[in-house]
């Protein structure tokens, strides 16, 4: 590795330190959203409760990633790596839940039929 291999960006020595107000505001927002998720969990919204809780958690996780983990100011490739992993994790959960809810009624019906038939 010689000098002409070093990109100009690497030469910039002063690190990008996040301003203190940004860090404090991020933490304050996370605390407020924690309170919000506790409050909303006490209101009965039926199936929407889980959706809302996950939406708030997703928002909190985004704040952590963008500011605490400074992805917002990072090389775009770090975001690509992370978002790809999150995408595939969500795909895994989503498709598996979709699948299990599809065949579960048939499974229950078969179990009940077997019970009615009695022990052999």
């Amino acid at each position: 590795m010689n000098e002409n291999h070093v990109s100009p960006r690497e030469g910039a020595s002063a690190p990008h330190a996040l301003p203190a107000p940004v860090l404090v505001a991020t933490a304050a927002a996370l605390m407020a959203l924690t309170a919000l998720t506790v409050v909303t969990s006490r209101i009965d919204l039926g199936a929407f409760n889980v959706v809302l809780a996950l939406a708030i958690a997703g928002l909190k996780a985004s704040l952590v990633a963008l500011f605490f983990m400074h992805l917002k100011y990072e090389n775009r490739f770090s975001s690509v790596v992370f978002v790809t992993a999150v995408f595939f994790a969500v795909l895994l959960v989503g498709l598996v839940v979709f699948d299990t809810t599809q065949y579960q009624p048939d499974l229950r019906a078969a179990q009940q039929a077997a019970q009615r038939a009695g022990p052999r």
Partner: protein
Amino acid sequence: MSAPSPGSAPAARAPFLAPHFGSMGSQLDTAKLGTWLFLASEVLFFGGLFTAYAVFRANHPDLFHYAHHFLDWRLGALNTVVLVGSSLSAAWSVRCAQLGQRRGLRVALLVTLLLAGVFMVVKYTEYSHKLRHGIGWGAAYHPTAEILESLPAALRAVPAPEHLGTFYSIYFLMTGLHGIHVLVGMGLYLWLLRRAGRGDFGPGYYVPVDMVALYWHIVDMIWIFLFPLFYLV
């Protein structure tokens, strides 16, 4: 490969620049890429467990409403606040290292370590309370009469749902694996404290502080999902 470079001049070489890197900049960029790939594998690692949770919950929603009465949401919320606080101090430690504030760095690292310790103490309280009352995983689920008394009257009136042991298997596996991550983080922060005390870190070299903080933030991020999914339902 490593032919002696002409006029080999290591005099100007930075003390923490590994021999296989050309510059501190490329060393930092490589560390970041490696850490983000590791964090991606962590997301997929927990992704499998979240899948188990989702499948079980989709098929047994009644179970989750019953079982969450044995989890104290106040302790879960307390631990959420503790972890958010420790994430703030972790991010602060990176800032201090980047700005060359050595005293601030040591304080921020120590606060992060202590808050992680508080998290584990709360976790220990929760686990020991459950296990003392027979709330174990799988076949070890034998709740005592005392803890069943604590359920709301409406729930005591109906028979308990099946598969409660499986719910607690998922609970202990997910929160336990998260707890192990917290313990690993505490070890890493002890190591950072030792090195910060030696004065290793500054604006020119802060890779370990930054990378451990990234790991710590993902531990916080996973708890952000575990808290509403188990304690609030």
